[in-house]
């Protein structure tokens, strides 16, 4: 049944590169099928009445008008369909994305710090602990996220700009913060989008299931260069990721 109803291939959605993308796309298919059904149903009715009930064809209007239970049936059907979408799909999918975060051991953690108009990426390094950050240490060129050099945990941290490398088939937790205004971290192929609100650290989680390079597109108007606030996500094997992180730490500030 799911195969039959899944029309996400015809909706022009980007490829599915995360584990939850299929669920979202299936729900998207069902919603669009419901929309199509209502649109075609009313459309056929509409064209019929325009022809059938024009003055020439029907010179005397009916005071009674439409009788019967059609409208009630239709409205009940819409209510039921919406209830199914809510209870069967919207609540469970949202619940998994918001509440069922993977444990710290099994997940790969990274911070993304947005600013006008770039995505700073902060890896904890080999010790698995993020170094402390202080806004007063921020320097546009040498220390964009204000990493504290006196914190031992920050020694092996890796900081990149607009380059986010992630492991395939392992739950990923990204903690999003912003330095200045609201941005929105969106990667269409991963079916993730999360507003990055200054003053709040917002975690998101997903599992990337397809290797490749994808674009991070800022989705919230953030100023004059909003349109080119682009970053890149590379989903790769753990070995490749390890090598890349090694290379990056040698380039470190």
């Amino acid at each position, binding site marked *: 049944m799911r195969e039959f109803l899944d029309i996400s291939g015809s909706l*022009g*959605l*980007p490829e599915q590169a995360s584990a939850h993308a299929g*669920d*979202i796309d299936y729900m*998207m298919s069902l*919603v669009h099928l*419901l*929309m199509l059904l209502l*649109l075609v149903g009313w459309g056929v009715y509409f064209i019929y*009445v325009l022809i059938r*009930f024009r*003055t020439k064809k029907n*010179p*005397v*209007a*009916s*005071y009674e*008008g*439409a009788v019967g239970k*059609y*409208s009630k049936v*239709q*409205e009940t059907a*819409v209510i039921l369909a919406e209830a199914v979408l*809510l209870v069967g*799909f*919207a*609540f469970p999918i*949202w619940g998994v994305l*918001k*509440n069922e975060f993977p444990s710290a051991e099994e997940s790969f953690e990274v911070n993304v710090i947005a600013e*006008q108009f770039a995505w700073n990426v902060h890896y904890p390094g080999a010790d698995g602990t993020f170094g402390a950050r202080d*806004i007063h240490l*921020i*320097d546009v060129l040498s220390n964009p996220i*204000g990493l504290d050099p006196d914190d031992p945990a920050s020694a092996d941290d890796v900081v990149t700009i607009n380059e986010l490398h992630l492991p395939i088939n392992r739950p990923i937790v990204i903690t999003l913060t912003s*330095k200045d205004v*609201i941005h*929105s971290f*969106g990667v*269409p192929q991963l*079916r993730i*989008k*999360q*507003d990055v*609100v*200054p*003053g*709040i650290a917002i975690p998101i989680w997903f599992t990337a299931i397809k290797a490749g390079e994808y*674009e991070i597109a800022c*989705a919230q*108007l*953030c*100023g*004059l260069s*909003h*349109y*080119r606030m*682009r970053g890149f996500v590379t989903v790769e094997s753990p070995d490749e990721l390890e090598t890349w992180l090694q290379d990056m730490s040698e380039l470190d500030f």
Partner: protein
Amino acid sequence: MTYGTEREMTDSVSGGDESVHDVHRYHEEPFWRKYIFATDHKMIGIQYALTALFFLLTGFTFMMLMRWQLAYPGQPIPLIGWLFSDDTMPGGVMVPEFYNQLGAMHGTIMVFLGVVPLAVGAFGNYIVPLQIGAPDMAFPKLNMASYWVYFCGGVVMLASFFVPAGAAKAGWTSYPPLANIETMGQTMWLIGMMFLITSSLLGAVNFLTTIIQLRAPGMSYFRMPFFVWAQFVTAFLLLLAFPPLEAAAFLQLADRLIGTSFFMPSGLVVSGQVLDIAGGGSPLLWQHLFWFLAHPEVYVLILPAMGIVAEIIANNTRKPLWGYKLMVYSLLFLGAMSFIVWAHHMFITGMGTTMGAFFQVTTMIISIPSVIILSGLFLSLWGASMRFTTPMLFALAFLPMFGIGGLTGLPLGLAPTDIPLHDTMYVIGHFHYIVAPGTILALFAGIYYWYPKVTGRKLNDFWGRIHFWGTFICMNGIFMPMFIQGLAGVSRRLYDGGATYDFAANVVQYNELMSIFAWVLALAQIPFFINFFLSIKKGKEVDDNPWKATTLEWTATPTPPLPHVNFETVPTVYRGPYEYSVPDSDSDFTPQNQP
């Protein structure tokens, strides 16, 4: 009741220092009293209509400029590019700052200075007192004040383009912190909004009082035309939803001017510099206050349109509306529900499951009364004897267009499907289908329908049909491709229309097509404007009730209705609003005031 006593009634309404005998006082009004600082609801309605049409054209012009940049990013605008300053279009090429100004002001102007003033200020003002048998609005001077406060708001908004660094450029939503750190144009925007909000509040009080207090004898609530009901609910929405935004605008103004931090969190670093602010505020607080207004505002945009369409459909199908009472109850339910759906605009701000569930459920619930009203309008066509007059064409086109707009709201109102679609072109397509081919077509329908009441002449049907088909086809050509772009993931508010992104490569080419439709849409408005102004003197003369309608504005008043009194005698209402094709009746319409 006689003319004289009618005058007394008006005088008591408008302050009453004029002579009771002077029934022709309105002829002697000086020019400035009659046309400028008018207190007659009809003249104020006309003032609103002309001003709002001007602003609709202005907002549309902004969009046509933006659509050049979207279709041909970085290329100079031909012919008119040199008209602009070097700050906005050096060498005729639009800079991103100016694009963002036009974007923010397009939204602001279309919503607050164009559609709402036309739907409520113009149609509501002109038609509501006539349809309920009132001599004027309850507070004529307040009515004058609300027009002039609106006018000032418009002037402030337009003037903001000429302050240093130009107009507001943080979107019509003005989210802080971006809005807080923007240039002086944002301050102008906030001041302009405070004028516009004040105007709407004054108007809302006036509408409510008028509809509650000034109905003619026999005009019970359930004999009111659906249009009056729509305006009634709209007035409640304006009255209750706008004050939080007025407060929010004041708080943002304080943040900008006197250093408070209502919407500014601690620890902001802009361009490498730590901001010197108190901090501790919340950017999301603004979003809650903004959407607490802006969601009901959607219904402010759509309900009067539904009212207009209902009038025209009943009149041109020659039969009663299907399920009038059910539709009125749906309207009331819709109005009440619209106050508890606002945060569905905020699913991806980090909302958890409890809030998410609440706002998804309320959003699905509010879709039901909308479905009932639309179904009612569709079912009203069954058994009709349909006349395809020009207003009817626009009213009929409203139905499927509003349908598409409403249906595409479903995936946005469900949080998981909102993830890929939020802030994409899909959203733009969705609400433009509601407001442009939806509301604006309905407003055109209203202009073609009530024009004979205002001028005593009809608009030309041939040019009306050209206008209709041009507008209908072009609007679909502009907005339909937005769904395709949105599903592919293209964000809204992009200066280059998404050309930066590889994932948009297959859909950015639609930008050119959409832009061409936008410019042809402008051409399609030329016959309308010529028709609109020429027909004042040259249109075909018609009698008082050219559409053979049942409601009081057609059956009880001369054309145009008498200044300040409307009716020669106060009408008495004996029946419901849509008694068309009553069995065993001589005529296919039975006016409300026919005993």
